């Protein structure tokens, strides 16, 4: 690693976090702001006078001018960097001027007019972006825009501009109609993006890519959130609070989950092939073993780790050094699955019978007079060996949760049972267990979900060879190693269906709690 590499990496982190901070500050500037916070004070000062604006404009201009002057004069000022800095400088000046104009000219105007003007400007900007994207090929500064991206820009910008203009017009309509009409406009815009994409894609040779789909999703999110926020003045800030998370989740989880569900019905080339992937899954020997292994995992891991965790929690309850006991068993939770994989690979390591063993498990086998075993290669016991690793990790979690639940069982009940002559086992069976039932259920479901998704342990220890693969690992292998995204998606879908009952159950619990609260 050279020093330059290191500087580059650290710079990524610093620039990335700084950009995130600026974006957040801009977003929060829409809220009412406490004036004593230094950063926000800057925004407040902008509202008052001309001078701070002039200083900021000067600073941005300086950046742009310096970049132009240094270009060619010093070797490290590349063309790309010059372009970037000039664009930043011009954009900064533009934003400050725009803010001034809005503040000066629109302050006394009613909210509807302000909203309409802002939307109008947004529409103009969207069209300008689209036009600029079209001319990307001839402008050297924009050569990073690929043709697909330029087309996407156009497909998205036109419905977006249309929606902005329409909603600007709607700003003057009275309330309930306005809300509904705006929602309708945004959804129509999203649909328009989808339709245009589909039409254009059928005419082009190369695919447009997924960017327009994400934009359609974002447009719908904007519409729905705006609809929800527009109910009264008080709920508007929710847009600011919720927008980043909602957009990220839609683009990053909702949309991909739907895409994967569709992908599961396509083959290598992306054409629809019905249920072939599922037929493959339930007819191939390897795939069937994978499914069987997953079922073994999801039965054994939750049961054993909950049982051991519960026993341990009961045994150490109120004993001296309880904290240390807890820490020892909880420690595997802090270790990565990869680390745990290596630890246990070492435990299971194998040497021929004539050599000295270096793995503890084989040493113990030899000590009681057995032959050393290739533990990770002999099916089906190797799956059990991997399951033990997961149990080793999850027991700590079960133990800590159940220990807390046990302490919540009223002492009076236990004492009453003792006076009635119940022995420790009866007290445990009839008082403690009913008292911690809900926590038990929660522990079992949580561990089941974690087990269904298990990937790292199998990957590190056997890479899924020797009949040890599980669904999550097989999905990765098919999608990213064998170039069969359709099969990978089908496996992911199976995983989702396996988790589904647990999701439904958890939502029910959540609703019950809401009702109680």
């Amino acid at each position, binding site marked *: 690693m050279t020093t330059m590499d290191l500087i580059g990496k650290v710079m990524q982190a610093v620039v990335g976090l700084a950009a995130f901070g600026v974006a957040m500050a801009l977003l929060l500037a829409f809220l009412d702001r406490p004036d004593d916070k230094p950063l926000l004070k800057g925004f407040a000062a902008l509202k008052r006078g001309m001078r701070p604006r002039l200083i900021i404009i000067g600073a941005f201009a300086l950046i742009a001018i310096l970049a132009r002057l240094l270009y060619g004069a010093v070797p490290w000022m590349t063309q790309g960097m010059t372009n970037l800095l000039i664009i930043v400088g011009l954009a900064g000046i533009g934003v400050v001027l725009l803010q001034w104009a809005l503040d000066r000219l629109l302050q006394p105007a009613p909210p509807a007019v302000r909203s309409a003007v802002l939307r109008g400007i947004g529409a103009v900007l969207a069209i300008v972006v689209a036009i600029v994207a079209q001319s990307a090929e001839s402008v050297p500064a924009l050569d990073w825009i690929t043709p697909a991206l330029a087309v996407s820009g156009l497909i998205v910008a036109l419905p977006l501009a249309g929606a902005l203009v329409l909603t600007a017009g709607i700003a003057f309509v009275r309330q309930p109609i306005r809300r509904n009409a705006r929602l309708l406009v945004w959804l129509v815009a999203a649909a328009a993006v989808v339709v245009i994409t589909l039409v254009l894609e059928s005419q082009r040779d190369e695919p447009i890519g997924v960017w327009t789909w994400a934009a359609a999703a974002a447009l719908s999110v904007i519409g729905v959130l705006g609809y929800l926020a527009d109910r009264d003045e008080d709920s508007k800030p929710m847009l600011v609070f919720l927008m980043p998370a909602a957009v990220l989740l839609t683009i990053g989880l909702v949309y991909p989950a739907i895409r994967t569900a569709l992908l599961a019905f396509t083959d290598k080339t992306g054409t629809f092939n019905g249920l072939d992937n599922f037929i493959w899954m339930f007819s191939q020997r390897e795939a069937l073993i994978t499914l069987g292994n997953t079922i073994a995992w999801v039965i054994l891991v939750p049961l054993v780790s909950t049982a051991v965790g519960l026993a341990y929690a009961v045994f150490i309850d109120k004993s001296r050094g309880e904290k240390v006991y807890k820490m020892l068993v909880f420690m595997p939770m802090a270790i990565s699955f990869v680390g745990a994989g290596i630890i246990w690979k070492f435990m299971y390591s194998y040497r021929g019978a004539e050599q000295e063993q270096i793995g503890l498990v084989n040493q113990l086998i030899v000590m009681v007079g057995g032959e050393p075993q290739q533990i990770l290669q002999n099916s089906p016991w190797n799956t059990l060996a991997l399951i033990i690793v997961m149990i080793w990790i999850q027991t700590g979690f079960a133990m800590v949760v159940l220990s807390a639940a046990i302490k919540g069982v009223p002492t009076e009940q236990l004492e009453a049972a003792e006076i009635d002559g119940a022995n420790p086992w009866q007290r445990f069976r009839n008082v403690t267990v009913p008292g911690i039932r809900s*926590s038990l259920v929660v522990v079992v479901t949580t561990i089941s979900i974690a087990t269904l998704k298990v990937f790292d342990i199998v990957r590190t220890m056997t890479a899924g060879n020797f009949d040890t693969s599980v669904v999550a690992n097989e999905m990765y292998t098919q999608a990213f190693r064998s170039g069969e995204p359709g099969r990978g998606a089908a496996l992911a879908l199976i995983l989702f269906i396996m988790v589904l009952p647990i999701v439904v159950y958890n939502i029910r619990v959540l609703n019950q709690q809401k009702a109680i609260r």
Partner: protein
Amino acid sequence: MTSAAVTPDSEITSETAEAALGGGRFDRVKKRLTSPWATLAAIVIALLWTIPTFGLFLSSFRPADQIATTGWWTFFTDPQLTLDNYGEVLFSGSSSSPQLGEYFVNSLLISIPGTLIPLVLASLAAYAFAWVKFKGSSTLFVIVFALQIVPLQMALIPLLQLFVTFLQPFQNALHEAIPFISDKQFLPVWIAHTIFGLPLAIFLLHNFISEIPREVIEAARVDGAGHGQIFFRIILPLAMPAIASFGIFQFLWVWNDLLVALVFSSGTPDTAPLTQRLAELAGSRGEDWERLTAGAFVSLIVPLLVFFGLQRYFVRGLLAGSAKG
């Protein structure tokens, strides 16, 4: 209890309960329910759970030829220790050795933004769900909760396609503008960790933020505070302990993650984290125990330090919150 126990976060609450019950009004004569046999069983379990880690730890300090030929338990009869293994995995310049130092830096640079960004976004969203009234709030919240359990495997392929079509051109442009920033960057990994961490973070922080007494917030509102002021002046300070303790967990998850790294990082020393390199080593050099043992401990050291060093902050943080609530 149950609401928190749905999530891996529960050890926090349990510690709280333990401290409250053990140290507070229930501080009566300690009465054991179980026998010496139970204590013995507990010691056996504790030993079983500790020995694997201990064996690896001890081995990482033994000379390479000894690790390969004798079991680590022979250390007690023939003690020999060395730091060579660590020197080799961390700093060695030869191409065949792991050179984990570089990957260690990558892990740090992935984990820190991968923790901060979701925390900020999640606390904003959690506040909106808890205290901004809008229609459909509870439906949206249930959707977010359900997302938490959707296997992240389902999101990988389309998200990767999104990144390749949209993020990659941007990254190339940045690389061209500033040449010593590699065109293989951390950005996709950060975004992926942010997205995958958000549902759980929103759910947990919402649980905590919604328990802040209504009177406090209504008093502020009567005094003329808007949502921005309430968030910065009241919610953030009061929820800071919960935010901090969730931050620690998110850090551990991101640091320990392998799948997201495999899919979204480049796999080269430019961006790959420790876990990825270790998994590679375990696969290709399965019998180089002197490297694997030391390498594994290099990757364990940060989570273990965080876990042992910050353990009490979990307790203190949640106690502070619950005492006021």
